[in-house]
Protein backbone atom coordinates (compact mmCIF):
# COMPACT_ATOMS: atom_id res chain seq x y z
CA UNK A 1 0.00 0.00 0.00
CA UNK A 2 2.62 2.52 1.06
CA UNK A 3 4.74 1.31 -1.81
CA UNK A 4 2.03 2.36 -4.29
CA UNK A 5 1.69 5.82 -2.73
CA UNK A 6 5.40 6.37 -2.96
CA UNK A 7 5.26 5.51 -6.63
CA UNK A 8 2.43 8.03 -7.24
CA UNK A 9 4.33 10.77 -5.47
CA UNK A 10 7.40 10.17 -7.54
CA UNK A 11 5.32 10.22 -10.73
CA UNK A 12 3.78 13.57 -9.72
CA UNK A 13 7.16 15.03 -8.90
CA UNK A 14 8.44 13.76 -12.17
CA UNK A 15 5.55 15.41 -14.00
CA UNK A 16 6.34 18.72 -12.26
CA UNK A 17 9.97 18.51 -13.20
CA UNK A 18 9.04 17.63 -16.76
CA UNK A 19 6.66 20.59 -16.84
CA UNK A 20 9.40 22.99 -15.85
CA UNK A 21 11.61 21.65 -18.58
CA UNK A 22 8.99 21.30 -21.32
CA UNK A 23 6.73 24.27 -20.77
CA UNK A 24 8.30 27.73 -21.09
CA UNK A 25 5.07 29.15 -19.71
CA UNK A 26 5.44 27.23 -16.47
CA UNK A 27 9.06 28.32 -16.22
CA UNK A 28 7.95 31.95 -16.57
CA UNK A 29 5.31 31.36 -13.91
CA UNK A 30 7.96 30.07 -11.53
CA UNK A 31 10.05 33.19 -12.22
CA UNK A 32 7.10 35.45 -11.44
CA UNK A 33 6.22 33.62 -8.25
CA UNK A 34 9.83 33.89 -7.15
CA UNK A 35 9.77 37.67 -7.56
CA UNK A 36 6.33 38.22 -6.10
CA UNK A 37 5.68 35.53 -3.49
CA UNK A 38 2.44 37.22 -2.40
CA UNK A 39 0.87 36.98 -5.82
CA UNK A 40 -2.66 35.60 -5.57
CA UNK A 41 -3.40 32.18 -6.90
CA UNK A 42 -6.27 33.35 -9.07
CA UNK A 43 -4.71 35.66 -11.64
CA UNK A 44 -7.52 36.20 -14.09
CA UNK A 45 -10.02 36.54 -11.35
CA UNK A 46 -11.85 39.35 -9.68
CA UNK A 47 -8.89 41.56 -8.75
CA UNK A 48 -7.55 42.05 -12.25
CA UNK A 49 -10.99 42.47 -13.75
CA UNK A 50 -12.14 44.91 -11.10
CA UNK A 51 -9.02 46.99 -11.66
CA UNK A 52 -9.92 47.05 -15.35
CA UNK A 53 -13.48 48.13 -14.65
CA UNK A 54 -12.35 50.92 -12.37
CA UNK A 55 -10.09 52.60 -14.90
CA UNK A 56 -10.39 56.36 -14.65
CA UNK A 57 -11.38 56.56 -10.99
CA UNK A 58 -9.89 59.69 -9.49
CA UNK A 59 -11.17 59.70 -5.91
CA UNK A 60 -11.50 63.43 -5.45
CA UNK A 61 -14.02 64.06 -2.73
CA UNK A 62 -14.67 67.69 -1.91
CA UNK A 63 -15.95 66.68 1.53
CA UNK A 64 -12.74 64.89 2.42
CA UNK A 65 -10.72 67.75 1.02
CA UNK A 66 -12.49 70.39 3.07
CA UNK A 67 -12.33 68.29 6.23
CA UNK A 68 -8.61 67.84 5.74
CA UNK A 69 -8.21 71.57 5.19
CA UNK A 70 -10.13 72.30 8.39
CA UNK A 71 -8.03 69.84 10.40
CA UNK A 72 -4.79 71.37 9.25
CA UNK A 73 -5.64 75.01 9.90
CA UNK A 74 -2.17 75.79 11.14
CA UNK A 75 -0.20 73.43 8.99
CA UNK A 76 0.40 73.33 5.25
CA UNK A 77 -2.06 71.33 3.25
CA UNK A 78 -0.31 68.25 1.88
CA UNK A 79 1.03 69.30 -1.47
CA UNK A 80 0.61 67.24 -4.60
CA UNK A 81 3.33 64.65 -5.09
CA UNK A 82 5.90 65.61 -7.70
CA UNK A 83 5.58 62.40 -9.69
CA UNK A 84 2.31 61.18 -11.07
CA UNK A 85 1.28 58.49 -8.61
CA UNK A 86 -1.99 56.74 -8.14
CA UNK A 87 -4.03 58.65 -5.57
CA UNK A 88 -5.06 55.99 -3.08
CA UNK A 89 -4.88 55.23 0.57
CA UNK A 90 -4.69 57.89 3.25
CA UNK A 91 -3.59 60.69 0.95
CA UNK A 92 -6.35 63.27 0.51
CA UNK A 93 -6.34 64.43 -3.11
CA UNK A 94 -6.14 68.15 -3.68
CA UNK A 95 -7.44 69.95 -6.75
CA UNK A 96 -3.82 70.13 -7.93
CA UNK A 97 -3.74 66.32 -8.04
CA UNK A 98 -6.43 66.25 -10.67
CA UNK A 99 -4.79 66.98 -13.99
CA UNK A 100 -6.61 69.78 -15.73
CA UNK A 101 -8.09 68.21 -18.78
CA UNK A 102 -8.41 70.50 -21.72
CA UNK A 103 -9.28 69.62 -25.26
CA UNK A 104 -6.41 69.51 -27.67
CA UNK A 105 -6.72 72.66 -29.72
CA UNK A 106 -3.67 71.49 -31.60
CA UNK A 107 -4.49 69.66 -34.81
CA UNK A 108 -3.46 66.06 -35.24
CA UNK A 109 0.06 65.65 -36.65
CA UNK A 110 -1.33 63.09 -39.09
CA UNK A 111 -3.07 65.96 -40.85
CA UNK A 112 0.12 68.00 -41.01
Amino acid at each position, binding site marked *: MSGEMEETRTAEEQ*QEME*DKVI*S*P*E*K*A*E*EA*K*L*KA*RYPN*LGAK*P*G*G*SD*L*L*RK*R*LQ*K*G*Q*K*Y*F*DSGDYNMAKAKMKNKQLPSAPTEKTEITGGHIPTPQD*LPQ*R*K*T*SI*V*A*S*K*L*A*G
Partner: protein
Amino acid sequence: MAGAGGGNSDVQWCFSQVKGAIDDDVAEADIISTVEFNHSGELLATGDKGGRVVIFQQEPESKNQPQCRGEYNVYSTFQSHEPEFDYLKSLEIEEKINKIRWLPQKNAAQFLLSTNDKTIKLWKISERDKRPEGYNLKEEDGRYRDPNTVTTLRVPVFRPMDLMVEASPRRVFANAHTYHINSISVNSDCETYLSADDLRINLWNLEITDRSFNIVDIKPTNMEELTEVITAAEFHPNQCNTFVYSSSKGTIRMCDMRASALCDKYAKLFEEPEDPNNRSFFSEIISSISDVKFSHSGRYMMTRDYLSVKIWDINMETRPVETYQVHEYLRSKLCSLYENDCIFDKFECCWNGNDSVVMTGSYNNFFRMFDRGYRQDVTLEASRENSKPRSVLKPRKISTGGKRKKDEISVDSLDFNKKILHTAWHPLDNIIAVATINNLYIFQEKLN
Protein backbone atom coordinates in the same frame (compact mmCIF):
# COMPACT_ATOMS: atom_id res chain seq x y z
CA MET B 1 -0.92 35.53 -59.60
CA ALA B 2 -1.66 39.20 -59.57
CA GLY B 3 -5.05 40.64 -58.87
CA ALA B 4 -6.80 42.21 -55.97
CA GLY B 5 -6.54 40.33 -52.76
CA GLY B 6 -4.66 37.51 -54.36
CA GLY B 7 -2.57 34.93 -52.58
CA ASN B 8 0.27 36.15 -50.48
CA SER B 9 2.85 34.05 -52.28
CA ASP B 10 3.04 36.46 -55.21
CA VAL B 11 2.30 39.71 -53.47
CA GLN B 12 5.18 42.01 -52.75
CA TRP B 13 4.45 44.95 -50.54
CA CYS B 14 5.86 48.40 -51.21
CA PHE B 15 6.05 51.46 -49.08
CA SER B 16 3.61 54.09 -50.27
CA GLN B 17 3.17 56.80 -47.64
CA VAL B 18 3.75 57.61 -43.99
CA LYS B 19 1.76 60.19 -42.01
CA GLY B 20 2.63 61.79 -38.70
CA ALA B 21 5.53 63.40 -36.88
CA ILE B 22 9.08 62.16 -37.35
CA ASP B 23 10.42 63.01 -33.92
CA ASP B 24 10.60 60.35 -31.25
CA ASP B 25 9.02 62.51 -28.58
CA VAL B 26 5.45 61.35 -28.85
CA ALA B 27 2.70 63.51 -27.35
CA GLU B 28 0.04 61.34 -25.73
CA ALA B 29 -2.70 62.93 -27.79
CA ASP B 30 -1.01 61.75 -31.00
CA ILE B 31 -1.18 58.06 -30.10
CA ILE B 32 -3.29 56.42 -32.81
CA SER B 33 -6.12 54.39 -31.33
CA THR B 34 -8.12 53.20 -34.33
CA VAL B 35 -7.83 52.86 -38.13
CA GLU B 36 -10.68 52.02 -40.51
CA PHE B 37 -11.30 52.05 -44.27
CA ASN B 38 -14.80 52.88 -45.45
CA HIS B 39 -16.76 50.39 -47.55
CA SER B 40 -15.36 51.51 -50.88
CA GLY B 41 -11.82 51.97 -49.60
CA GLU B 42 -11.77 55.52 -50.89
CA LEU B 43 -11.68 56.95 -47.37
CA LEU B 44 -9.42 56.00 -44.48
CA ALA B 45 -10.20 57.25 -40.98
CA THR B 46 -7.93 57.36 -37.93
CA GLY B 47 -8.77 58.23 -34.34
CA ASP B 48 -6.30 59.17 -31.64
CA LYS B 49 -5.93 59.50 -27.91
CA GLY B 50 -6.58 63.23 -28.14
CA GLY B 51 -10.12 62.60 -29.38
CA ARG B 52 -9.38 63.73 -32.94
CA VAL B 53 -10.41 62.04 -36.16
CA VAL B 54 -8.42 62.46 -39.38
CA ILE B 55 -9.92 61.22 -42.65
CA PHE B 56 -7.78 60.60 -45.72
CA GLN B 57 -9.13 60.31 -49.25
CA GLN B 58 -7.57 58.33 -52.03
CA GLU B 59 -6.61 60.34 -55.09
CA PRO B 60 -8.02 58.98 -58.33
CA GLU B 61 -5.48 56.87 -60.20
CA SER B 62 -3.45 59.02 -62.50
CA LYS B 63 -2.82 57.91 -66.04
CA ASN B 64 0.79 59.07 -65.71
CA GLN B 65 1.58 56.53 -63.02
CA PRO B 66 -0.23 53.30 -63.71
CA GLN B 67 2.18 51.46 -61.41
CA CYS B 68 0.59 52.71 -58.27
CA ARG B 69 -2.87 53.22 -56.98
CA GLY B 70 -3.82 56.65 -55.76
CA GLU B 71 -2.26 58.23 -52.68
CA TYR B 72 -4.20 59.09 -49.57
CA ASN B 73 -4.35 62.76 -48.64
CA VAL B 74 -6.07 64.60 -45.81
CA TYR B 75 -9.75 65.05 -46.55
CA SER B 76 -11.16 66.18 -43.23
CA THR B 77 -10.12 66.43 -39.60
CA PHE B 78 -12.17 67.26 -36.54
CA GLN B 79 -12.34 66.98 -32.78
CA SER B 80 -14.75 64.13 -32.15
CA HIS B 81 -14.68 63.76 -28.38
CA GLU B 82 -13.49 65.91 -25.51
CA PRO B 83 -12.26 64.95 -22.06
CA GLU B 84 -14.97 64.90 -19.41
CA PHE B 85 -15.13 64.44 -15.68
CA ASP B 86 -18.05 62.61 -14.11
CA TYR B 87 -18.24 64.33 -10.74
CA LEU B 88 -20.92 62.01 -9.46
CA LYS B 89 -18.72 58.95 -9.84
CA SER B 90 -15.34 60.68 -9.53
CA LEU B 91 -14.55 59.24 -12.91
CA GLU B 92 -12.32 60.73 -15.55
CA ILE B 93 -13.64 60.07 -19.05
CA GLU B 94 -10.91 59.96 -21.66
CA GLU B 95 -11.46 61.51 -25.06
CA LYS B 96 -9.55 58.70 -26.72
CA ILE B 97 -11.39 57.34 -29.76
CA ASN B 98 -11.74 53.62 -29.15
CA LYS B 99 -13.40 52.71 -32.43
CA ILE B 100 -14.58 54.23 -35.71
CA ARG B 101 -17.08 52.43 -37.91
CA TRP B 102 -18.28 53.73 -41.28
CA LEU B 103 -21.88 53.49 -42.41
CA PRO B 104 -22.47 52.25 -45.96
CA GLN B 105 -22.87 55.26 -48.23
CA LYS B 106 -26.46 56.10 -49.13
CA ASN B 107 -26.13 59.58 -50.59
CA ALA B 108 -23.50 62.20 -51.34
CA ALA B 109 -22.50 62.51 -47.68
CA GLN B 110 -20.40 60.04 -45.67
CA PHE B 111 -21.34 58.96 -42.17
CA LEU B 112 -19.25 57.39 -39.45
CA LEU B 113 -19.72 56.39 -35.84
CA SER B 114 -16.93 57.24 -33.42
CA THR B 115 -16.84 56.29 -29.78
CA ASN B 116 -14.83 56.96 -26.65
CA ASP B 117 -15.33 55.09 -23.34
CA LYS B 118 -18.82 56.42 -22.75
CA THR B 119 -20.37 58.23 -25.72
CA ILE B 120 -20.96 57.31 -29.36
CA LYS B 121 -21.36 60.01 -31.98
CA LEU B 122 -22.65 59.90 -35.54
CA TRP B 123 -20.69 62.28 -37.77
CA LYS B 124 -21.75 63.50 -41.18
CA ILE B 125 -18.95 64.41 -43.55
CA SER B 126 -20.18 66.37 -46.54
CA GLU B 127 -18.65 68.31 -49.38
CA ARG B 128 -19.52 71.76 -50.43
CA ASP B 129 -18.17 72.89 -53.78
CA LYS B 130 -20.72 75.48 -54.85
CA ARG B 131 -22.20 78.50 -53.20
CA PRO B 132 -25.09 80.71 -54.10
CA GLU B 133 -24.31 84.16 -55.45
CA GLY B 134 -26.43 87.07 -56.52
CA TYR B 135 -28.80 87.59 -53.63
CA ASN B 136 -31.24 90.44 -53.92
CA LEU B 137 -31.14 91.60 -50.32
CA LYS B 138 -27.52 90.84 -49.44
CA GLU B 139 -24.23 92.11 -50.81
CA GLU B 140 -21.58 89.59 -51.76
CA ASP B 141 -19.76 90.26 -48.48
CA GLY B 142 -22.88 89.54 -46.44
CA ARG B 143 -24.03 93.04 -45.58
CA TYR B 144 -27.70 93.66 -45.98
CA ARG B 145 -28.84 96.01 -48.72
CA ASP B 146 -31.34 98.73 -48.12
CA PRO B 147 -34.52 97.33 -49.71
CA ASN B 148 -35.28 100.75 -51.10
CA THR B 149 -32.23 100.52 -53.34
CA VAL B 150 -33.40 97.32 -54.99
CA THR B 151 -34.75 98.18 -58.43
CA THR B 152 -34.52 94.86 -60.23
CA LEU B 153 -34.81 91.24 -59.12
CA ARG B 154 -32.52 88.43 -60.07
CA VAL B 155 -32.41 84.72 -59.34
CA PRO B 156 -29.36 83.72 -57.30
CA VAL B 157 -27.16 81.17 -59.05
CA PHE B 158 -24.77 78.53 -57.74
CA ARG B 159 -21.17 79.21 -58.60
CA PRO B 160 -18.29 76.80 -58.02
CA MET B 161 -16.05 77.42 -55.02
CA ASP B 162 -13.02 75.72 -53.50
CA LEU B 163 -13.97 72.37 -52.09
CA MET B 164 -14.90 72.55 -48.43
CA VAL B 165 -15.33 69.36 -46.42
CA GLU B 166 -17.50 69.78 -43.35
CA ALA B 167 -17.90 67.39 -40.46
CA SER B 168 -20.89 67.82 -38.20
CA PRO B 169 -22.17 65.69 -35.33
CA ARG B 170 -25.65 64.52 -36.26
CA ARG B 171 -26.40 62.29 -33.28
CA VAL B 172 -24.94 61.86 -29.81
CA PHE B 173 -25.68 58.53 -28.13
CA ALA B 174 -24.85 59.08 -24.48
CA ASN B 175 -25.47 57.77 -20.98
CA ALA B 176 -26.06 54.16 -21.89
CA HIS B 177 -22.85 52.60 -20.61
CA THR B 178 -21.73 52.23 -17.01
CA TYR B 179 -18.50 50.54 -18.07
CA HIS B 180 -16.02 51.32 -20.82
CA ILE B 181 -17.13 50.89 -24.43
CA ASN B 182 -14.79 48.60 -26.36
CA SER B 183 -16.74 47.98 -29.58
CA ILE B 184 -19.34 49.38 -31.93
CA SER B 185 -20.72 47.53 -34.93
CA VAL B 186 -23.18 48.66 -37.59
CA ASN B 187 -25.84 46.11 -38.51
CA SER B 188 -26.30 44.99 -42.11
CA ASP B 189 -29.82 46.44 -41.89
CA CYS B 190 -28.14 49.88 -41.83
CA GLU B 191 -30.71 50.99 -39.27
CA THR B 192 -29.27 49.69 -36.04
CA TYR B 193 -25.90 49.25 -34.41
CA LEU B 194 -24.57 47.71 -31.22
CA SER B 195 -22.20 49.11 -28.60
CA ALA B 196 -20.44 46.86 -26.12
CA ASP B 197 -18.76 47.64 -22.82
CA ASP B 198 -17.05 45.30 -20.34
CA LEU B 199 -20.32 43.82 -19.10
CA ARG B 200 -23.18 44.88 -21.37
CA ILE B 201 -24.15 45.19 -25.00
CA ASN B 202 -26.73 47.71 -26.18
CA LEU B 203 -28.67 47.93 -29.43
CA TRP B 204 -29.37 51.35 -30.90
CA ASN B 205 -31.38 52.75 -33.77
CA LEU B 206 -29.23 55.23 -35.68
CA GLU B 207 -32.06 57.75 -35.62
CA ILE B 208 -32.90 57.54 -31.92
CA THR B 209 -30.55 58.83 -29.26
CA ASP B 210 -32.66 58.82 -26.12
CA ARG B 211 -33.29 55.10 -26.02
CA SER B 212 -31.29 51.93 -26.44
CA PHE B 213 -32.06 48.29 -25.76
CA ASN B 214 -29.85 46.16 -23.59
CA ILE B 215 -29.32 42.84 -25.36
CA VAL B 216 -26.53 41.26 -23.31
CA ASP B 217 -25.85 41.67 -19.60
CA ILE B 218 -23.21 39.54 -17.94
CA LYS B 219 -22.93 41.55 -14.75
CA PRO B 220 -23.20 39.19 -11.76
CA THR B 221 -25.45 40.29 -8.87
CA ASN B 222 -22.44 39.97 -6.62
CA MET B 223 -19.41 41.65 -8.20
CA GLU B 224 -17.13 39.40 -6.18
CA GLU B 225 -18.25 36.61 -8.49
CA LEU B 226 -17.03 38.42 -11.60
CA THR B 227 -14.92 36.04 -13.67
CA GLU B 228 -14.98 37.37 -17.19
CA VAL B 229 -15.66 40.53 -19.17
CA ILE B 230 -16.73 41.27 -22.73
CA THR B 231 -13.74 42.24 -24.85
CA ALA B 232 -15.21 42.76 -28.36
CA ALA B 233 -18.48 42.42 -30.28
CA GLU B 234 -19.53 42.47 -33.92
CA PHE B 235 -22.62 42.00 -36.03
CA HIS B 236 -22.66 39.31 -38.72
CA PRO B 237 -21.96 40.95 -42.11
CA ASN B 238 -25.20 39.77 -43.73
CA GLN B 239 -27.41 38.09 -41.10
CA CYS B 240 -28.93 41.08 -39.34
CA ASN B 241 -30.15 38.97 -36.42
CA THR B 242 -26.74 37.53 -35.52
CA PHE B 243 -23.86 38.99 -33.54
CA VAL B 244 -20.90 37.64 -31.59
CA TYR B 245 -19.04 38.78 -28.52
CA SER B 246 -15.70 37.61 -27.18
CA SER B 247 -14.56 37.35 -23.59
CA SER B 248 -11.45 37.72 -21.45
CA LYS B 249 -11.52 33.95 -20.95
CA GLY B 250 -11.01 33.19 -24.63
CA THR B 251 -14.58 32.25 -25.54
CA ILE B 252 -16.87 33.61 -28.24
CA ARG B 253 -20.64 33.62 -27.90
CA MET B 254 -22.88 33.93 -30.92
CA CYS B 255 -26.37 35.27 -30.26
CA ASP B 256 -29.56 35.37 -32.29
CA MET B 257 -31.72 38.40 -31.58
CA ARG B 258 -34.82 36.58 -32.83
CA ALA B 259 -34.64 34.16 -29.92
CA SER B 260 -35.40 36.67 -27.18
CA ALA B 261 -35.10 40.31 -26.25
CA LEU B 262 -32.26 39.67 -23.84
CA CYS B 263 -29.63 37.50 -25.47
CA ASP B 264 -27.97 36.26 -22.31
CA LYS B 265 -28.45 32.69 -23.50
CA TYR B 266 -26.06 32.23 -26.39
CA ALA B 267 -27.01 30.33 -29.50
CA LYS B 268 -23.44 29.05 -29.94
CA LEU B 269 -20.40 28.98 -27.69
CA PHE B 270 -17.02 28.77 -29.39
CA GLU B 271 -14.29 27.55 -27.11
CA GLU B 272 -11.14 25.57 -27.71
CA PRO B 273 -10.60 22.91 -25.06
CA GLU B 274 -7.53 23.55 -22.97
CA ASP B 275 -5.04 20.98 -21.80
CA PRO B 276 -5.25 21.21 -18.00
CA ASN B 277 -1.64 20.06 -17.71
CA ASN B 278 -0.46 23.10 -19.61
CA ARG B 279 -2.31 25.56 -17.46
CA SER B 280 -0.21 28.25 -15.84
CA PHE B 281 -0.65 31.59 -14.14
CA PHE B 282 -0.58 33.24 -17.56
CA SER B 283 -3.00 30.93 -19.36
CA GLU B 284 -6.14 32.93 -18.82
CA ILE B 285 -4.48 36.28 -19.43
CA ILE B 286 -3.00 35.27 -22.78
CA SER B 287 -6.21 33.56 -23.85
CA SER B 288 -8.16 36.80 -23.49
CA ILE B 289 -9.49 37.74 -26.93
CA SER B 290 -8.59 41.28 -27.92
CA ASP B 291 -10.46 41.38 -31.24
CA VAL B 292 -13.08 39.42 -33.16
CA LYS B 293 -13.84 39.97 -36.87
CA PHE B 294 -16.19 38.18 -39.21
CA SER B 295 -14.86 37.33 -42.65
CA HIS B 296 -16.46 39.29 -45.49
CA SER B 297 -18.30 36.13 -46.50
CA GLY B 298 -19.73 35.69 -43.01
CA ARG B 299 -18.76 32.03 -43.01
CA TYR B 300 -15.74 32.48 -40.73
CA MET B 301 -14.69 34.64 -37.83
CA MET B 302 -11.21 35.47 -36.64
CA THR B 303 -10.11 36.04 -33.05
CA ARG B 304 -6.87 37.52 -31.76
CA ASP B 305 -5.45 36.55 -28.41
CA TYR B 306 -2.05 37.54 -27.07
CA LEU B 307 0.06 35.05 -28.99
CA SER B 308 -2.10 33.81 -31.84
CA VAL B 309 -4.78 34.41 -34.44
CA LYS B 310 -7.53 31.78 -34.77
CA ILE B 311 -10.00 31.27 -37.59
CA TRP B 312 -13.32 29.71 -36.64
CA ASP B 313 -15.94 28.19 -38.90
CA ILE B 314 -19.21 29.51 -37.50
CA ASN B 315 -20.66 26.05 -38.00
CA MET B 316 -18.14 24.44 -35.67
CA GLU B 317 -17.95 25.45 -32.03
CA THR B 318 -15.51 22.89 -30.72
CA ARG B 319 -12.26 24.32 -31.99
CA PRO B 320 -10.86 26.77 -34.54
CA VAL B 321 -10.23 25.50 -38.06
CA GLU B 322 -6.93 27.38 -38.31
CA THR B 323 -4.47 28.71 -35.75
CA TYR B 324 -1.57 31.00 -36.60
CA GLN B 325 1.23 31.85 -34.19
CA VAL B 326 1.96 35.55 -34.24
CA HIS B 327 5.00 35.64 -31.96
CA GLU B 328 5.32 32.30 -30.19
CA TYR B 329 8.84 33.27 -29.06
CA LEU B 330 7.21 35.55 -26.48
CA ARG B 331 5.94 32.56 -24.53
CA SER B 332 9.27 32.36 -22.73
CA LYS B 333 9.15 36.10 -21.94
CA LEU B 334 5.74 36.17 -20.27
CA CYS B 335 7.15 37.03 -16.86
CA SER B 336 8.71 40.31 -18.01
CA LEU B 337 5.77 41.03 -20.33
CA TYR B 338 3.51 40.75 -17.29
CA GLU B 339 5.75 43.08 -15.29
CA ASN B 340 5.79 45.77 -17.97
CA ASP B 341 2.06 45.31 -18.67
CA CYS B 342 2.65 44.41 -22.32
CA ILE B 343 0.80 41.15 -21.72
CA PHE B 344 -2.38 43.25 -21.59
CA ASP B 345 -1.81 44.89 -25.00
CA LYS B 346 -4.88 44.60 -27.20
CA PHE B 347 -3.92 43.71 -30.74
CA GLU B 348 -6.49 43.91 -33.53
CA CYS B 349 -6.66 41.79 -36.67
CA CYS B 350 -8.17 42.13 -40.13
CA TRP B 351 -9.11 40.19 -43.27
CA ASN B 352 -8.18 41.07 -46.84
CA GLY B 353 -10.94 41.69 -49.36
CA ASN B 354 -11.48 38.07 -50.43
CA ASP B 355 -10.78 36.50 -47.01
CA SER B 356 -7.67 34.70 -48.24
CA VAL B 357 -5.15 36.55 -46.06
CA VAL B 358 -5.30 37.83 -42.48
CA MET B 359 -3.09 40.40 -40.83
CA THR B 360 -2.22 41.47 -37.31
CA GLY B 361 0.41 43.54 -35.53
CA SER B 362 3.25 42.67 -33.18
CA TYR B 363 6.15 44.43 -31.41
CA ASN B 364 9.20 46.22 -32.79
CA ASN B 365 6.84 47.74 -35.37
CA PHE B 366 6.50 44.33 -36.99
CA PHE B 367 3.26 43.11 -38.47
CA ARG B 368 2.34 39.67 -39.68
CA MET B 369 0.32 38.32 -42.61
CA PHE B 370 -0.98 34.78 -42.88
CA ASP B 371 -2.06 33.40 -46.24
CA ARG B 372 -4.71 30.82 -45.54
CA GLY B 373 -4.60 29.16 -48.93
CA TYR B 374 -0.87 28.97 -49.52
CA ARG B 375 -0.13 28.29 -45.84
CA GLN B 376 2.54 30.96 -45.84
CA ASP B 377 3.23 33.75 -43.42
CA VAL B 378 5.43 36.81 -43.55
CA THR B 379 6.73 39.35 -41.06
CA LEU B 380 7.12 42.91 -42.29
CA GLU B 381 8.24 46.09 -40.58
CA ALA B 382 6.78 49.58 -40.58
CA SER B 383 9.77 51.84 -40.31
CA ARG B 384 10.97 55.08 -41.81
CA GLU B 385 14.18 53.29 -42.77
CA ASN B 386 12.27 51.46 -45.49
CA SER B 387 10.42 54.54 -46.63
CA LYS B 388 11.75 55.19 -50.06
CA PRO B 389 8.79 55.52 -52.42
CA ARG B 390 7.78 52.18 -53.86
CA SER B 391 10.64 50.34 -52.15
CA VAL B 392 9.74 46.70 -51.62
CA LEU B 393 9.46 45.58 -48.00
CA LYS B 394 11.88 42.87 -47.05
CA PRO B 395 10.54 40.08 -44.86
CA ARG B 396 11.95 40.14 -41.31
CA LYS B 397 13.08 37.15 -39.32
CA ILE B 398 13.37 36.77 -35.58
CA SER B 399 16.03 34.43 -34.30
CA THR B 400 14.85 32.32 -31.44
CA GLY B 401 17.71 29.90 -31.07
CA GLY B 402 21.18 30.59 -29.84
CA LYS B 403 22.78 31.28 -33.16
CA ARG B 404 21.59 34.47 -34.80
CA LYS B 405 21.90 34.54 -38.53
CA LYS B 406 22.75 37.70 -40.40
CA ASP B 407 19.70 39.97 -40.90
CA GLU B 408 17.85 38.22 -38.11
CA ILE B 409 16.72 40.11 -35.04
CA SER B 410 17.10 38.51 -31.64
CA VAL B 411 14.12 38.39 -29.31
CA ASP B 412 16.02 40.33 -26.66
CA SER B 413 16.55 43.30 -28.94
CA LEU B 414 12.86 43.72 -29.79
CA ASP B 415 11.44 47.09 -28.78
CA PHE B 416 8.23 46.43 -26.85
CA ASN B 417 7.31 50.11 -26.88
CA LYS B 418 6.99 49.96 -30.66
CA LYS B 419 3.73 48.08 -30.93
CA ILE B 420 1.39 47.82 -33.89
CA LEU B 421 -2.07 47.36 -32.41
CA HIS B 422 -4.19 48.69 -35.29
CA THR B 423 -4.11 47.63 -38.93
CA ALA B 424 -6.67 47.85 -41.73
CA TRP B 425 -6.96 46.27 -45.19
CA HIS B 426 -8.62 48.01 -48.13
CA PRO B 427 -11.90 46.17 -48.85
CA LEU B 428 -11.09 45.56 -52.51
CA ASP B 429 -7.42 46.17 -53.30
CA ASN B 430 -4.09 45.17 -51.80
CA ILE B 431 -3.60 48.41 -49.90
CA ILE B 432 -3.00 48.28 -46.15
CA ALA B 433 -2.90 50.89 -43.42
CA VAL B 434 -0.62 50.09 -40.48
CA ALA B 435 -0.51 52.28 -37.38
CA THR B 436 2.59 52.46 -35.24
CA ILE B 437 2.28 54.42 -31.99
CA ASN B 438 1.95 57.81 -33.67
CA ASN B 439 2.52 57.24 -37.38
CA LEU B 440 0.26 55.83 -40.09
CA TYR B 441 1.95 53.79 -42.81
CA ILE B 442 0.27 52.95 -46.09
CA PHE B 443 1.66 50.06 -48.10
CA GLN B 444 0.55 48.92 -51.52
CA GLU B 445 1.01 45.82 -53.59
CA LYS B 446 3.82 46.10 -56.10
CA LEU B 447 2.19 46.41 -59.53
CA ASN B 448 4.16 45.74 -62.66
